[in-house]
């Protein structure tokens, strides 16, 4: 286990956290609530009046003036250190803003490209001179920026980039040549964070000003969704970049790219939570007004089930996102804020949690996919029409599962990163997995019958979800060794087992924390949601575990382990319709997400 005084990434699998340890939305302070409201006000006043122009006429150029208005309000300065005109806010605040800004639709992508991936490489990897030169103007929106990593031939395999950087004979400039693809904000950006290879192999980051020359912007892509967001190719033709604009170390561009992706992932997780809530806000009131067969459709069980399932998925995603924010803030708080390398050190703290970043990216984007899908379905024919926002949400949501690393790539990362930590001795995962395997082959413990306490069964099942994930991962690692990376289906199933454990534990701990604060009655709705989440996760984990084991073992060994798996996933099935009914009632009363 880690020797640090804070829990590290992936450690949740091995250690039961106490409710008081985790950060939850119920812990937001007054400043965070005010900032959330200010972000809402911005959208209400600046985005809503231009909604038609942005989303349906695809006016991508509007992004530039809107970003400048956001800059004037400080909405671009959240992650920028205070000494460069920013707020240097904690990650919880960063995530709150991402969640709220997601309500703006296409603008959210432009905001993310500017304030997130376009600015953060300089915050974390820039020299003091580079920070002083660029950050104050990025924080206000005076300079608009973008992040140019992807190429026509390299997406998930980012390091296969073909853009080249060649030092000129005078040794003063690199000449950049190549094509970058799907670059958000490219249509109006003044600045591009570009990745290119020096001498054919040294993958390196550069800060490229459009004014350097040799930067040609392609036509706007015609996209399925986020139609108001500018997305173009960026063509570099002998673009001269001063050697002083190399970002980070030569040959260490991957370090920048992967770390920025981590931040992109947790922010996308937060914004997807915002998307889930928006879908509920639009769909639930409709189900109250729409009458068929003489009654509002939300009196019907199948509609109530949809409302409840989306609410539960949103709750679990939200719990994971803010728990992770708390983990990051706790880790970063151990650093000396006055140290000259504080910014770099803080991104390395985020890197410790890249497992959590990938998990919330996957879980939250898929929760939003469910929310958009069921939102459209609840509206029926109206949901299919542009007049209602859900049609747009349904299209816009789709990109979330593609960018910031596809969900497939992220699924490979979760077990991959866990095993890397295990091999480096940072997490004793394999020992724990071995213990579970022995336990499963031993005599089952006798459980005394009786009425379980508050969330007692759920707590036990969450512990078993972790054991299931650990066992599947451990058995796969033992069986395949270093060939495990070729077993993508096994890896993805293991990832889903790990994610299920993190999601359910986050929901459970949040509920327990609320019960400590507001009593069991005050946490009754959360408890219903937790019960539903855990029930469904255990049933799904039984299937995932079976699949992973069948792809890993054979014969007697498989049969023995399957018996063990049955023991871990044994539970009294929850009365789902009753839970759905109560959860939906709360969402209907609230006209949307009930928290």
């Amino acid at each position: 286990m880690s020797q640090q005084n804070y829990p590290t990434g992936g450690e949740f699998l091995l250690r039961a956290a106490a409710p008081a340890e985790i950060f939850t939305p119920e812990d937001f302070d007054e400043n965070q609530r005010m900032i959330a409201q200010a972000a809402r006000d911005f959208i209400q006043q600046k985005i809503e009046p231009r909604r038609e122009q942005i989303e349906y006429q695809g006016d991508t150029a509007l992004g530039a003036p809107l970003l400048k208005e956001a800059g004037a309000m400080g909405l671009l300065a959240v992650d920028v250190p205070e000494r460069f005109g920013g707020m240097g806010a904690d990650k919880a605040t960063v995530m709150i803003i991402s969640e709220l800004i997601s309500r703006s639709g296409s603008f959210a992508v432009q905001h993310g490209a500017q304030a997130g991936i376009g600015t953060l490489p300089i915050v974390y990897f820039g020299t003091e001179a580079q920070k002083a030169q660029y950050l104050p103007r990025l924080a206000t929106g005076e300079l608009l920026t973008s992040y140019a990593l992807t190429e026509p031939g390299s997406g998930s395999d980012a390091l296969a980039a073909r853009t080249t950087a060649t030092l000129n004979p005078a040794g003063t400039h690199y000449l950049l040549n190549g094509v970058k693809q799907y670059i958000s904000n490219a249509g109006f950006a003044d600045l591009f964070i570009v990745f290119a290879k020096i001498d054919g192999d040294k993958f390196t980051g550069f800060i490229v000003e459009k004014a350097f020359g040799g930067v040609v912007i392609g036509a706007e892509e015609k996209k399925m969704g986020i139609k108001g967001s500018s997305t173009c190719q960026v063509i570099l033709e002998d673009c001269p970049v001063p050697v002083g604009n190399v970002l980070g170390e030569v040959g260490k561009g991957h370090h920048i790219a992967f770390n920025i992706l981590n931040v992109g992932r947790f922010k996308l997780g937060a914004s997807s939570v915002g998307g889930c809530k928006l879908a509920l806000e639009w769909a639930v009131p409709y189900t109250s007004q729409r009458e068929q067969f003489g009654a509002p459709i939300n009196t019907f069980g199948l509609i109530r089930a949809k409302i409840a399932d989306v609410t539960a998925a949103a709750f679990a995603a939200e719990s994971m996102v803010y728990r992770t924010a708390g983990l990051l803030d706790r880790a970063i708080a151990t650093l000396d804020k006055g140290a000259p390398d504080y910014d770099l050190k803080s991104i390395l703290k985020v890197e410790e949690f890249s497992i959590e970043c990938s998990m919330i990216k996957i879980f939250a984007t898929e929760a939003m996919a469910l929310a958009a899908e069921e939102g459209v379905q609840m509206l029926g024919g109206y949901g299919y029409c542009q007049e209602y926002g859900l049609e747009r949400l349904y299209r816009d949501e789709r990109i979330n599962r593609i960018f910031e690393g596809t969900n497939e790539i992220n699924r490979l990362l979760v077990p991959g990163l866990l095993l890397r930590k295990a091999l480096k001795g940072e997490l004793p995962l394999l020992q724990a997995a071995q213990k579970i395997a022995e336990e499963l082959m031993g005599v089952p413990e006798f459980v005394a019958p009786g009425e379980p306490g508050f969330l007692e069964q759920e707590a036990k099942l969450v512990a078993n979800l972790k054991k299931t994930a650990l066992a599947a991962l451990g058995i796969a690692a033992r069986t395949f060794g270093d060939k495990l990376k070729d077993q993508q289906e096994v890896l993805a199933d293991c990832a889903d087992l790990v994610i299920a454990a993190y999601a359910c534990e986050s929901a459970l701990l949040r509920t327990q924390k609320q019960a400590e604060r507001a009593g069991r009655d005050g946490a009754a709705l959360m408890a219903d949601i937790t019960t539903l989440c855990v029930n469904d996760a255990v049933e799904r984990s039984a299937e995932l575990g079976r699949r992973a084991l069948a792809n890993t073992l054979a014969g007697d060994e498989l049969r023995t382990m399957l018996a063990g798996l049955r023991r871990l996933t044994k539970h009294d099935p929850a009365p789902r319709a009753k839970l759905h009914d109560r959860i939906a009632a709360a969402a209907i009363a609230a006209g949307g997400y009930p928290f």
Partner: protein
Amino acid sequence: MKIAVCVKQVPDSETRITLAAPGPELDRSGFTRVLNPYDAYAVEEAVRIKERLGAGCEITVVTIGPIRAVETLKKDCLAVGCDRAIRVDEPALENAEPLQTAKVLAAVLRRGAYDLILTGKQAIDDDSAQVGPMLAELLDCSQATVVTKLELGEGVFTATCEIEGGAAVVRGSLPAVITCQKGLNEPRLPSLPNIMKAGMKPQETLTCADLGLGIPAARSRVTTYTPPPPRAACRMVAADDPAAAARELARLLRDEAKVI
């Protein structure tokens, strides 16, 4: 110049009010609270005057409300440029009627020699539009209501007031109470750094006793809140024969709906 802005925290206009049964109480627990939108024009006008006049101009924002009103004071008043805040915390004044509010505000305002008192033309929760005029009477100063344009001179003001069917230009002496209407200005959004710093500005919390005031008596009380009647089901009139349909519609409107 010393400016006071009187503000009220009100339920958001999108608040869903549910009423289980008619009665004297509303369940206000789930309400989202915001700055009264007309008060936002008053805050913005004060800040613009201060920006014009520069040093020597101070803005005090005053409200009556419980602790939750602090968020509104900070985010929507102090963070956009007001200098200090005074909040009267008096549970008995929750849902006060206009004269109670005006008396308490007048007591607060008498403690400072304000040249200009700005407030919204009405609050969007009880819609009384009475507090501003009452305040001017209690303080014995001039007033202009429903103002869409305001100019200040040496000890005087010129205000354009919206009146039925047109506008009236009112000149008066300072001190004065001005109630602000949409169109006066475009309120700015608070910046996030200013929101974070708002808590550092001076804030004073008072009770009626601190003001040397008994709690003003209410002269009326709400006896019952009732929800609007549910909408009746839609009746369709068959229109195979338009003339017959029109006759049937007219009959229904006269005999059943009794509206013609």
